[in-house]
C-alpha cells in the first residue's frame, strides 16, 4: 500500500470510489499509477492544513483572534473548503468533466462524493489539529489556542 492511499483506507465513502481514486483500470484489472489521484488529494489537503496553520498562528497571529472559537472558525473554514473541493473533484469525475472519468464498471454516486468530501474535510481537520498541537509554541499571540500550551517561557 503506497503512502498516500494509507490515509484513505477507511471504507466510509465506498469501495468503488476508493478504487477509482487509486487509479483502477477495469481493462487491465489493476491500478494504474498514472491515474492515482490520492497523492494530489493528500497533498492539497495536507498543504491546505499547513497553510491555515501558518496563517492562523504566524501570519495573522492576532491577539484579538486567539480564543478557542476563533481556532474553531479557522478549522471550519479549512474543513469546509476541503469538503467543497473534494466533493467537486469526485463529482467532476462522475460527470466526465475531468481528466479521470469514472470507469463504467464502478458504481459511484453523488452520495459517495458527499461522503468523500466529509472524509477529506475530517482528514484536513486532523492535520490542522496535529499542527496546532506540535507547532504553535512559537506563536506570540495564539500559543495558548485552542488550549494552554505546555511550553511556557514565562
Amino acid at each position, binding site marked *: 500500500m503506497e503512502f498516500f492511499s494509507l490515509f484513505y483506507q477507511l471504507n466510509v465513502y465506498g469501495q468503488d470510489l476508493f478504487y477509482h481514486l487509486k487509479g483502477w483500470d477495469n481493462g487491465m484489472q489493476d491500478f494504474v499509477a498514472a491515474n492515482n489521484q490520492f497523492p494530489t488529494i493528500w497533498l492539497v489537503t495536507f498543504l491546505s492544513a499547513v497553510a491555515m496553520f501558518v496563517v492562523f498562528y504566524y501570519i*495573522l497571529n*492576532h491577539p*484579538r483572534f*486567539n480564543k478557542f472559537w476563533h481556532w474553531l472558525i479557522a478549522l471550519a473554514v479549512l474543513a469546509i473548503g476541503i469538503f467543497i473541493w473534494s466533493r467537486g473533484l469526485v463529482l467532476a469525475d462522475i460527470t466526465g468533466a475531468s481528466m479521470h472519468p469514472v470507469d463504467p464498471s464502478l458504481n459511484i454516486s453523488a452520495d459517495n462524493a458527499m461522503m468523500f468530501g466529509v472524509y477529506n474535510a475530517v482528514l484536513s481537520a486532523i492535520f490542522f489539529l496535529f499542527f496546532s498541537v506540535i507547532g504553535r509554541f512559537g506563536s506570540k499571540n495564539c500559543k*495558548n489556542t485552542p488550549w494552554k500550551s505546555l511550553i511556557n517561557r*514565562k
Partner: protein
Amino acid sequence: MAKLYVFGIGGTGSRTLRALTMMLASGVECKFDTVVPVIIDPDASAADMSRTVDAMTRYMEVRKSLDFNSANENRFFKTEICPIQDMSTFKLTLENTENVTFRDYMKTNQMDAASKALINMLFSQANLDSDMVVGFKGNPNIGSVVLNQFSTSDAYKAFSNNFEEGDRIFIISSIFGGTGASGFPLLLKTLRNDQTSQHWNYIKNAKIGAVTVLPYFSVEQDDNSGVDSSTFYSKTKSALAYYDRNITGNNSVNALYYIGDSMPASYKNHDGGSEQRNDAHMVELFAALSILKFAATPDNELDGKTQTYEYGIDTNDEDIKQVIFKDLGSETRRLIQKPLSMFLLMNKYMKNALASQYKFQPWAKDCGLDENFFTSQYYSDLKKFQDAYGIWLDELGRNKRSFKPFDEKRIVPLFDLVNGQKAHKIMWPLHDLFAKNYALMDSFLNTNWPKWNKTASKEQKFMELFYRATAKLTSKKYNF
C-alpha cells in the same frame, strides 16, 4: 545606600512631592536609590497634603512587592520612597498649633507690658487672632515663630539620628506664602546650626539643595480670607532680598533653584483645610525636576559658592498657553517623555482593555495572572495609583498655564495619545501591522522576552511585562 531627604514645606511642598511621586512611579531616573519625603505643614487637613500622602503611601504599598535586582528591567516604582526611619508618617508634626490662636501660642497673656508692646509692633491684631489650624495664611511672620520648633519635633530627631554621611537634603518651599517662605530659612538654619542633632557633623557638611517657587498662581479676592494674592509679589521681593543675604549670601545652601510663572493660574480663595485642593501645575512638575537635577549633580559641582539655577521652556512664544513635550528643553524631554508615556500606556490598558483580555492573552495565562491576582490588594493599590496618575495629568492639562503632553482622555486611536507626536506604523512583523490600539499592546505584552526571570513573583512579572512592552512600544511608535 545614600538617601535623599526631601522636605516639602506648605502646600507647594506637598504638591511638588506629588509630582515627584508620579514621576518616580513612571520610572523617571533618580540618582538616589531612596527618597525620604518629609512634609512640613501645620494645616493637618490640607487636601493637597492628604493627596500627596495617599499617593506616596500607595507607592510604597505597590513597591514592596517588587524587586529591582539585575534580573529585572522594570523601572516603574524603582526609587524607594519611605518615611524617616522609625517614623510611620511622612508628616513632621508641629506641636501646639491645633485649636489655638497665634496669641495663645505666644502666651501673650503671660508677657510683661514691654514684651506685649513689642509683639503688638511686630504682629497685627488679625495676626494675633489668627487660628493656626489651617497654617499661616500667607503670613511668614507667624511662620517664622511657630516653625522655630523644628528641632524639637520627633520627626526631626529621627531624621538627625538616621542621617548618614553621603545623604543629601532638599527643601521645597514657595516664597510668596506663609509656611514655605518662613519655613525654608528656618529649616536651613536648623540644619546647619543645630549642634544638638545626633549626626550634626554629617548634616552640617551635607549637600543641601532647595527649590524656591516664585508666584505662579493667584487667589480670588476675598475680604474674609487671610490670603491676599496682591501681596505675593511684594512678599517675594522682600524674601528674595532676605535670601540674598542669608541663604545664597552665606552659601548655606549648595544649590538653589528658582522657578515661577508670569502667567499665574487663578484658584478659589481658601485659607486651607480640606478645601485647599489646587490642581496640579506644571511649575510643581518642574520644581520636582529640580530635585532630580540636584540628585544627579556630582558633589564636586556643589562645592563652594551656592549654585543658582533657573528653569525655562524651549519656545519663542512667551504667551504659550499649552506646553507639550516639544516645548521642553532636550534634557528635560529626554528625562521624562518616555517614562511618562510608558506609564500612561499602562494606565490606558489597565483602564480600557485589561478586564476583557486577561483571560485570553498568553501574557496573563503564562504568568498565572488570573482573577485572584486582579482582585488582589496589590492590583487594587496599583489601579488606585494609576487612577491618581490620570487625575494628576488631567489637572496639569487643564491648569493655566497648561502642561498637556498627552490627550490622556483618549481611548482610541490609542497611539495618538502624545500631543504633537506622530505615531509611526509598525510594518514588521506582519502580525503587528494587523494589530491596532490595545491589541497591539497585547501583542507586545505577549512577546517572548529574553532574559525573563521565570521565578519572579506575579506582581513582579506583571510590572516587568508592562515595563518592557511599553518601553518597546514607545521606542517603535515614537522613537522615544
